[in-house]
């Protein structure tokens, strides 16, 4: 059984009178431990697809299953728990909570789960060390560079030991050198911890690091299984 299974997924957006067909029949399976890049031009439906996989949005048609569970059948609270425990999110603009320090940001998912402060802090510091910015643990986000913020975000996405990390254009706000570093950090995590990574990008230069590429165009997958 694949970690993620999608069959004939459609997603429409309604903009007043007009309907935008963002996804027009997607079939996709992703196995545990994969390191996948969804790539394609802007507007091809990458973000929409990742939102469905991340259980923060629902398809208009078709079902998404994660580890055999149909996401549509879950209540809002169950989806929250699923995201908290099984899915990590990395965003294009980092989305760190500005009033919290790096380590406090990393602690958030664990604390949402209800783990004690001291245990959460220990884990968070460990993850910060893994992404190589222990020394910034007590800095607020506005004092950090984009690359540093995204490292904090990676630590935050990994801190609950998820089976899947979703990153929508994680490098779009970074220079190309930093972008390569961020992708390689993610890649290391994937190799060491066997965590599944799915990220989207429109930057072909990043594809040299991935194992599998899913090419999207116009709401469809044009090549879903290019391996390297």
């Amino acid at each position, binding site marked *: 059984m694949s970690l993620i299974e999608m069959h004939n997924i459609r997603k429409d957006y309604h903009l007043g009178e007009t309907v935008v067909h963002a996804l027009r029949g997607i079939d996709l399976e992703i196995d545990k431990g994969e390191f996948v890049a969804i790539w394609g031009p802007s507007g091809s439906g990458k973000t929409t697809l990742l939102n469905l996989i991340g259980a923060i*949005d629902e398809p208009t048609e078709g079902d998404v299953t994660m580890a055999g569970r149909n996401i549509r059948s879950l209540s809002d*609270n169950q989806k*929250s728990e699923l995201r908290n425990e099984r899915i990590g999110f990395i*965003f294009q603009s980092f989305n760190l*909570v500005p009033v919290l320090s790096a380590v406090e940001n990393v602690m*958030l998912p664990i604390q*949402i789960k209800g783990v004690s*402060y001291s245990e959460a802090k220990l884990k968070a510091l460990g993850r910060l060390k893994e992404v190589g910015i222990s020394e910034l643990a007590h800095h607020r986000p506005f004092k950090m560079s984009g690359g540093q913020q995204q490292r904090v975000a990676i630590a935050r996405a990994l801190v609950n030991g998820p089976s899947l990390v979703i990153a929508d254009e994680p490098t779009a706000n970074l220079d190309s050198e930093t972008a390569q570093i961020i992708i390689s950090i993610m890649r290391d995590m994937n190799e060491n911890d066997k965590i599944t990574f799915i990220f989207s990008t429109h930057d072909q230069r990043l594809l040299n690091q991935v194992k599998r590429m899913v090419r999207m165009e116009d709401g469809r997958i044009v090549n879903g299984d290019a391996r390297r």
Partner: protein
Amino acid sequence: MMKWIKLAMRNILRNKRRSLVTLIAIAVGFSAISLFRGYTDRIYWFLKEGAIRGESLAHLTIYKADWLEKGKLDPERYMFSQEEIKRITGLVMQEKEVVLITPQIQVNGLITNGTISLPFIAQGVVPGDDKIIKGSWAALRPMTGEQLNDHKPYGVEVAKDLARFLNLEPGKDGVVMAPTLSGQMNALDIQVAGVFDTTMAATNDKFMRFNFDFAQSLYNTKGAEKFVVLLKDEKKTGKMRKAILAKLTAAGIACEIKTWNEMSAYYARSKGLLDVILLFILSIVLVIVTMSTVNTMSMAILERTREIGTLRALGLKQRGISILFATEGGLMGLFGSLAGIVIHLIVCTILRIVSPTYMPPSGTVAVRLWVDYIPATLFALMVFLVFLSLLTAFIAARRAAGQNIVDALKHV
């Protein structure tokens, strides 16, 4: 919970100016209520003591059954006889809570200085008992000359304006006239013992106070119109009314018993008015606090839409978002209330140092402006405002908590 309080604290500090404005609104609202409440509390106490001691109503008044309805038509029948006076006094004095029971008569008549006559209303009281009822209140009763006493039964007290109109002062003589119970006109010589100030313009031109025995002779009776009962503890008034009524009824004496607040129309009216004003202030503050919390929280929520989306993506439930903002609102209410308490204490202290006075609406002597400091009231008000701002924030955040996560994440 601690983590959310910490997060809420930091978010409050994030927009200091906006938080400060809300805080001030809550603090001012808080102190407006607490100061007015502290002020009225003082006045209620003053009015209560004024009724019990000043008006000599004591705590309970005992009438013969139907006196209030028919007494004026047939006073003889509805007054307590000499023998009943003895029996009732004996029975009531058995109660441990009773300090004293004393008979009174009210007399209506004319007072003349030989040239002019004016109507008066006089309270006939037993001087020794009345002195006990007045207690320390006597000091608050501006008076010249001497008080009623047992040595000179025909010595009377005259209210200030009445004395002035008749050109009477302590030591001067006059005559009082009134119909006896059987209807003949009776006149007795008096001597002014003292001139007192009722502190109310409406009564200063007609009130007098007689020795009880003297009032009896003017009415040509050995009876009493009513008794007043002084208790050790004002809080037991209701309980003692029941106990005494039961006791007297069991002894075959049909009577009615009124409490001091039922007797003092002035107290009831003043309290009623102040209570309405308090309610009015309370509702204004309620609106201000609610609106400023709604305003502040809505702005904060809107600004942090993307943060809400992020927290939801990280797995925080809708209720968690609401709680987060409710905590912020509640903290704002808490700090605002604490600031309100500080304002209250500052004003209290200033009033105690400066001690300004003011003229009460119906009064004739200036009263010291005073605000009580009642910890229980301040605490209750704080709990109320914290709860109010917490609830307001919770409701304001509910829609944001339920919004689409994807839309929230796209928000700039």
